[in-house]
């Protein structure tokens, strides 16, 4: 706004009057930034300035012949209070929805962690079962090693056979039975290394294979004695065994 030099004496005015003049100028949209700031600040804090703004507005309405039945009604405070409350409610709602969301996330995380824990327990159970079986086998192997004279019951029992089945190596054949026996008589060992565990497993597997082979051989031998045509299968088995 360009200012021409004032031709009238500037009267001494108080701070209050200066603020009122700034209000008058601001309502006309002619104030500078600093004045407008002072007025906005004043209206928000000073009820007197607020009501004065209403009266200045009323003067303008009266000059234009537009005073209506609501001239003495002031809803501005109510409007601003409602807007404030509206914003507070919105902020609270936002915060609440945020907490609910994080709580939901938390419960999902909890259920996930519960699942993980359950899975761990299940795995641990399986490992424990496998470990106890392995321990039983290992103990059985250790107990059986110093007793090479233990005879396989299957070998001793068919005494009536004309040609008893000869198992290739008695030491190896004993492992399976000893292992089973060890399952009942097992002494728990405190520490078992993975190498021991693997070794015990391989021994147990080999013993099972040999036992099965002995049964098959015995069956073939009996069949051969009963029927001459079956001698070929017996011969095939014995030749395979010799390999």
């Amino acid at each position: 706004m360009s200012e021409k030099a004032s031709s009238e004496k500037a009267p001494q005015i108080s701070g209050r009057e200066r603020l009122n003049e700034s209000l008058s100028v601001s309502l006309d949209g002619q104030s500078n930034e600093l004045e407008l700031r002072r007025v906005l600040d004043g209206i928000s804090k000073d009820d007197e300035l607020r009501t004065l703004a209403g009266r200045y507005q009323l003067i303008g309405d009266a000059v234009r012949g537009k005073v209506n039945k609501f001239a003495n009604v002031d809803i501005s405070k109510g409007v601003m209070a409602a807007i404030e409350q509206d914003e507070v409610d919105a902020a609270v709602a936002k915060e609440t929805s945020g907490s609910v969301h994080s709580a939901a996330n938390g419960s999902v995380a909890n259920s996930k962690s519960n699942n993980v824990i359950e899975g761990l327990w299940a795995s641990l159970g399986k490992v424990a079962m496998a470990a106890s079986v392995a321990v039983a086998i290992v103990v059985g192997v250790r107990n059986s090693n110093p007793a090479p004279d233990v005879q396989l019951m299957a070998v001793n029992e068919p005494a009536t056979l004309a040609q008893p089945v000869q198992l290739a190596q008695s030491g190896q054949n004993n492992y399976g039975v000893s292992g089973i026996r060890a399952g009942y008589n097992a002494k728990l060992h405190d520490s078992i290394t993975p190498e021991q565990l693997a070794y015990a497993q391989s021994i147990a597997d080999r013993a099972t294979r040999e036992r099965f082979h002995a049964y098959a051989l015995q069956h073939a031998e009996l069949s051969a004695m009963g029927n001459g045509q079956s001698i070929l299968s017996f011969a095939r088995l014995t030749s395979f065994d010799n390999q």
Partner: protein
Amino acid sequence: MAENQDSDQELVARVKQGDKRAYDVLVIKYQHRILGLVGGYVNDFQEVQDVTQEAFIKAYRALEKFRGDSSFYTWLYRIAVNTAKNHLVSKGRRLPESDIDVHDADFLETATTLRVVDTPERNLYCDEIEQVIHDVIQRLPDELRTAVMLREFDGLSYEEIADVMDCPVGTVRSRIFRAREAIDREIRPLLGQGG
């Protein structure tokens, strides 16, 4: 009134930047006009105030969408009319056959259907205020009366008034302020706002 529109745009811009106090000034400026407009749709005095308050709150929430293609008052006027109509529908009341035109809204009190609001006491009160203001203006010194009438009645800017009165802009702002102060001293007791 281009000057009012400019000042409104500035206030609207401030509100959009987060300064709620600027909206307070807009409410003070237009509350009586919007109250009068809503009074053309709603009969109950308390309901008129409630609906007007709701209209201002709606306008505040929607202010981000206000592009400034029309004046702030025209935009606010539309919101107020819609709010008043929605209020009537929610109360199961009949809508008026025709809308109140934005240009006629200010003169609504003379042709409105207000029954509860339009009491003899209230009419007398309004007439008295208007009469007192006109009387004070007539008694003002010429330079103050001319300045305030050019501003309030003709809607001229301070620059334009300075040109018409051949005086500095600072003098114009001082004269308009002193005229308002003089009128305010007379109407304050009438409004029950002390002195």
